[in-house]
């Protein structure tokens, strides 16, 4: 319940945050909404020496029209993303999925950047960004780079972010005319998904992200290939679990998760199939 001691620094800008990260290496962690980090601190599963608060940097909270994409600041709350007219019009899958994260109180504080940088395979946003083929802008001492979602989630709670780097923008392609579906199967409405599916069919190209089907966020690559090749929703869904390593936990064994992945991919492709 009670975190271990740490120091705290409120960063006024991205540069200040990066400088603090550079100075402290992996003894420092960034915090914005804190809804991934503070629960870990309370259970003493994480005990950094310094928290660098980027949640007050107004310049990191935005949803902008970037032409062919939307540019979203990492400290933008889930609430802002879910309620944004721009997101609802241009990337409705993202708005719909964000509206189901946690509960209203969580959505009022938690940020999209925090959720993505945490890299939890059981979280909704990584799967959504995979389906959308989004990219992440990352800044560090050596400058700025843009990383595709497919290259961003590298392991269990591990991303391509180096300890001295910071996620500074999330870019999602505009897909206003794409068909999409978000399927989240859980026991209670506030729960993480037991299995979830984020599906998008844009100009015939399917993107299907899976929630909680492996040790890192995954695509349903076999289903994508089948759907792209003209397979029916049922046939494409039949291979949804190919290449996945679903975990066994209190809510589901691996075989049930594989089954759920098939069911949810079929539902998603049916809804998105038109």
């Amino acid at each position, binding site marked *: *319940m*009670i975190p*271990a*001691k740490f120091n705290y620094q409120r960063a006024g800008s991205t540069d200040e945050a990066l400088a603090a990260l550079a100075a402290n290496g992996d003894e420092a962690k960034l915090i914005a909404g804190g809804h991934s980090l503070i629960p870990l601190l309370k259970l*003493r599963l994480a005990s950094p020496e310094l928290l660098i608060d980027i949640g007050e940097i107004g310049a990191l909270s935005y949803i902008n029209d970037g032409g062919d994409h939307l540019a979203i600041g990492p400290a933008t709350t889930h609430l802002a993303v879910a309620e944004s007219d721009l997101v609802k019009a241009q990337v409705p899958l993202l708005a719909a999925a964000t509206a189901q994260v946690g509960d209203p109180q969580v959505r009022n504080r938690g940020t999209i950047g925090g959720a993505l940088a945490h890299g939890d395979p059981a979280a909704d946003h990584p799967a959504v960004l995979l389906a959308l083929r989004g990219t992440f802008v990352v800044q560090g001492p050596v400058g700025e780079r843009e990383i595709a979602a497919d290259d961003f989630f590298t392991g269990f709670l591990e991303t391509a972010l180096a300890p001295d780097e910071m996620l500074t923008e999330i870019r999602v392609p505009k897909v206003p005319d794409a068909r999409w579906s978000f399927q989240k*199967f859980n*026991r*209670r*409405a*506030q*729960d993480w998904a037991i299995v979830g599916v984020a599906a998008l069919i844009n100009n015939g190209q399917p993107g299907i992200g899976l929630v909680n089907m492996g040790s890192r966020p995954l695509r349903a690559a076999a289903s994508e290939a089948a759907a792209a090749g003209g397979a029916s929703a049922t046939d494409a869904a039949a291979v949804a679990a190919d290449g996945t390593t679903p975990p066994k936990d*209190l*809510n*589901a*064994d691996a075989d*049930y998760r594989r*089954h*759920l992945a098939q*069911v949810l991919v079929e539902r998603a492709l049916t809804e998105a199939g038109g």
Partner: protein
Amino acid sequence: MPFVGERIVRKEDPVLMTGRAEFYDDIRPEACMAMAFVRSTYAHAKILSIDTSEAAAMPGVLAVYTIDDFADYGMVPGVPGMDRPMLARDIVRFVGESVAIVVAEDNYLAADAVEAVVVDYEPLEVVNSVADAMADGAPVLHEAIGSNVLLDTPWADDIEAVFSAAPRTASLKLWNNRVHPAPMEPNGVVADWSGQKATLWVSHQAPHHLRNTLATYLGITHSDLRIVMADVGGAFGAKIQWYPENFLAPIISNRLGRPVKYTQTRSECFMLMMSARDQHHEAEIAFDDEGTILGVRSMLYANAGAYPDVPIALGMPTLTNWMTSGCYKIPALATGHKVVATNHAPLSSYRGAGRPEACYLIERLVDLVVSETGLDPVDVRMRNFIPPEDFPYTVPHAEVEYDSGSYAETLNEALRLIDYDNLKAERDRRNNDPSEKLMGIGFSSWVEIASFGPRGALEGFGHIGSYESSQVKVQPDGSVIISTGASPHGQGTVTTLAQIAADELGMHIDQISVKYGDTDSGPQGIGTMGSRIAAIAGSATKEASIQVVDSAKKVAAHLMEANPDDIEVVDGNFSVKGTPARSVSWGEVGWASMSPTQLPDGLSAGSLDQTVFFEPTGFTFPSGTYICVVGIDRTTGEVEVEKFLAVDDCGTVLNPLLAEGQVEGGIIQGIAQALYEEMRYDDNAQPLTASFMDYLAPAASDVPRIDSGRTNTPTPHNTLGAKGIGESGAIGSPPAVVNACVDALRQFGINHIDMPVTPQKVWRVLNNSVGG
């Protein structure tokens, strides 16, 4: 207008709703220290060493204690041989058992110091289940007992003759899953024994019970130990027991000369507050082709955990056995039980306390008869109900006499409210249409034993008596203060007792204030548990009010120079019957009652002050029929409660608004047990569900609305005719849900599915079936 029977909003609410309540953690005496526990990470291990030196040297740490520091004190009161040390001595027997205590200036420093205590364990073989505990060669957890079977009650008669002769028999292995009361407020205590007298503020259901035992334990008089029952954030039966912190905190306060507080975290609560149910049943039913029940035989195995909570853990299986007959006139029953120790945290009572297990057992057996015969569940029940003319009805296998009931009437009322024929048609249509969700209809016609209890009932559970008390005291302005031994934690007792008194006293409830929970003032009480307060404290209040009015009429008569027998009191005024124009108010009577110059001979000052310790003449037997309709997703196995109808019979209803609240709350807990909740352990008896993330207590988004109805068979055992209703919802609902699930899945070849009925379990049934 009468208050009893009306939907009166609660007097308790304004304080609770505006953040001005005083739960124990809100109380902070000057210089209060914080205490925190070092807890075992093993389920069964020898303690080789405990190194407290680093912790003791940390900033703000005032002391670090182990059991050796309490050598002058004994075990937590229990049965010798299986009692529990306040802190583990040499051996730990469940994950979370306290091994050491840190006392510090505040919680944060205490938490840091807890991390710095180093304990060296030598793991021992773990007894992880009732089966493990009874296996040959299992480690014996309490050597003085010599066996892990702590209590063994075999069948008095195995009624084999009944089963051999029966046209049909069927059997079932059931598990009433382990659940946790999980009140929103965990346990905790503030103790101040820095002076001569000791005071504890504690979240508790039985403050006098705690005071009496704790004072003796500490070696002080009852008069020198004051227990103040703080506002209690839910209890459900888990805050009656002896928890070590309540014994340790005053000792520590006394030793260090400052008040001390223990604030339990939620994960500690899941590990340490006593969880419940976890009964395995092997049951058989004998019947004929018409569905007549000829006999029921059951053996029950109850997990008591590492240190049985004596006597509640040992008493509940008895209640389960007593109530195995349910609503049915069963000619022969054989019930037995074994209570077994395991390396789990102790188990104890939780809403229903032994009766949910009985109800689940008999209602699942009745449903088994339905599965076997194809008869309608309504017909099987109607055929076997105890008829109204048989009451009071004594069950054949125990000294248990049901007071009253009209089970067919209750079931018929439920059928009337739900349009059963249409429901059945809908179910058949959906179950034959693969594009539709499966549908099931489940019944639970249940009876339970409440209003604990007649003389001797609670003494069997370690209490001093089975009465409940109420003191009605008129103030000089005619307003009234009631002090009761009841210890409410959400039931609305203040409002209910005020309603009862108001009707007898002929005044408005706004004139009446109800106090409880301070052992220094008011009468000795037994406490709030076992659905007893409306019936017993209510009757005590009624009787005390009647006595007060009797004297008050004498005062009024004296003031009006009239005959007391001619006086009536209505709407705050005393008058001669038939001449309401000439009256004296309660205010005038109240003042006179304290003013000797205005009193008649024979009455002294303060006579409008009566205390009654009411003893009911028997247990009461609330009953009901619940009907649950579930929809099951054929592809995911997810179960949704589409409809839930509850028809309850609790005798006289004192406040329908509050009664509904009790029923709805209990039913949602019962639905949660049936579909969501389970305390789970890994192979090393490590708890896996020690948070609200993993223990699936549902939210508003996850549960249905309950429709309700009522029938009324009053009880003769108290002056209100009230049977009590606090636990009924949690008792009657799980079998209704499971019976509905089985009904939906019968075509897939099953006749049972264990709780909680998770999507995965259902999927396995659907997946394993051939066709369907």
